């Protein structure tokens, strides 16, 4: 019997199942700081946050509800926001998704889109307010509005991408 080759019907490796979602969020968080782009305003959507939300909407029970603590800390190191902002806000978003998945029993595509867009809007607005407590609130919120609109429009794309990564994650050997 050949012990080295893959066996028929064998599930995906546990290692890959655990690492792929975390790695996509971490790479997406760090990606904006590897691009040669000197931005004059928040022009890129929060890539790490979008992947974080999409993974949880796609696989609600894959992560424990506190997973936003380490992933948020990683995002804070690269996003430029005060350290701790994403730690708090991302974890609250996880709790909100867990709650919504209990209330809305069969979530559809448009539910997912609406939840992700709403959470991105709330998180980016609160993060901007925390970062600039002394500036005029209306002006600070105006800064992130274009980014929130772009992010809301990109949610379906990120849900698709997350689905592709999920297929890779669960691919049988």
């Amino acid at each position, binding site marked *: 019997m050949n012990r080295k080759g893959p066996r028929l019907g064998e599930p995906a490796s546990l290692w890959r199942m655990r690492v792929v979602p975390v790695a996509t969020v971490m790479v997406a968080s*760090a990606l*904006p*700081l*590897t*691009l*040669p*782009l*000197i*931005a*004059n*305003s*928040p*022009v*890129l*959507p*929060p*890539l*790490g946050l979008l992947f974080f939300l999409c993974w949880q909407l*796609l696989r*609600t*029970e894959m992560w*424990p*509800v*506190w997973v*936003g*603590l380490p992933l948020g*800390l990683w995002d804070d*190191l*690269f*996003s*430029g*926001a*005060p*350290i*701790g*902002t994403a*730690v*708090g*806000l991302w*974890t*609250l978003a996880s*709790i909100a998704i*867990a709650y919504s*998945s209990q209330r809305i*029993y*069969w*979530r*559809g*595509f448009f539910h*997912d889109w609406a939840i992700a867009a709403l959470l991105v809007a709330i998180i980016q607005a609160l993060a*901007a307010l*925390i*970062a*600039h407590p002394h*500036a005029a609130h209306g*002006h*600070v919120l105006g*800064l*992130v509005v274009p*980014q929130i609109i772009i992010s809301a429009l990109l949610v379906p794309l990120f849900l698709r991408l997350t689905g592709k990564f999920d297929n890779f994650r669960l691919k049988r050997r």
Partner: protein
Amino acid sequence: MARPAHHRPGQSRKAQYSLFAAYVIAVTGAVAGLLLAILSVVDPVGFAQLRVASQEITAPVARVTRSVTGSISGIDDSVGAYVSAGSQNRRLRKELTETRRKLVATSSLQEENRQLKALLKLQETDKSALANGYLLTSTSTSSKRLALLSLGRNLGVMAGQPVRGADGLIGRVLSSGPSVSQVLLLTDVDNIVPVRRASDGLPALANGRGNGDLDIRTLNIANNPFKPGDILVTSGTGGLYPPNIPVAIVVRRQDDGALARPLADPGKVDAVSVLRPYTPDNIEAQAIPAPTAPPAGTP
């Protein structure tokens, strides 16, 4: 469609406790995180080291991507130059004749200036930059405008040093790591620069708007003296930015001041210099070496 979640742990005590514990960890962690965020707003220096250390990781990638796209955009520019060669040639010739005329006028002024300075025995202070580097990348997903500079403590870059490009002021160093450092750009909402109008020395404050523009406010609120086209330079007040660095040009008047655009666009600037902060000991240190130089002609 997402599968319904099975959040009810059933009769198992262990499952019930672990779910409860996960929520307790999440809520306490979230509250602690938000408190930490407020702390790091109040005291940004303490946490800046942590951030700059993590950016040492992405800096090598940013260096590579910058060098690659830099050459690509160079190709783009040279293609564009071929396409518009005719009109460009005419325009440049016109500019050249104008510039020649101005140069003649300026050179006589320069000579006069030199003689006046010699008369007053003014010392030429050392204006050389501490180090020269380039901006690698910047935050682009949050409302903070922080850029990554390709120099760190290895070249003597320290927090609080001003950074300028050829066209004007870029910002100041917020924190420095071993080989990279963070620059708070001029356009950040929290960056306030004391400026004066170049034409008459009218003092004002430039405050970033976070979207690439600057708010200019006069210290005297009785009237609004700005008009489009006014050039603003640093005044040296406050002791961080050296005086007479170009900062911005006024675009239009506003109710309580003016809207200005920075003269140096950090997105387009190629090389930047890190300057010494304009503090009393630095000013003296620059002034002292000049008189101690031996006069020419001593044996």
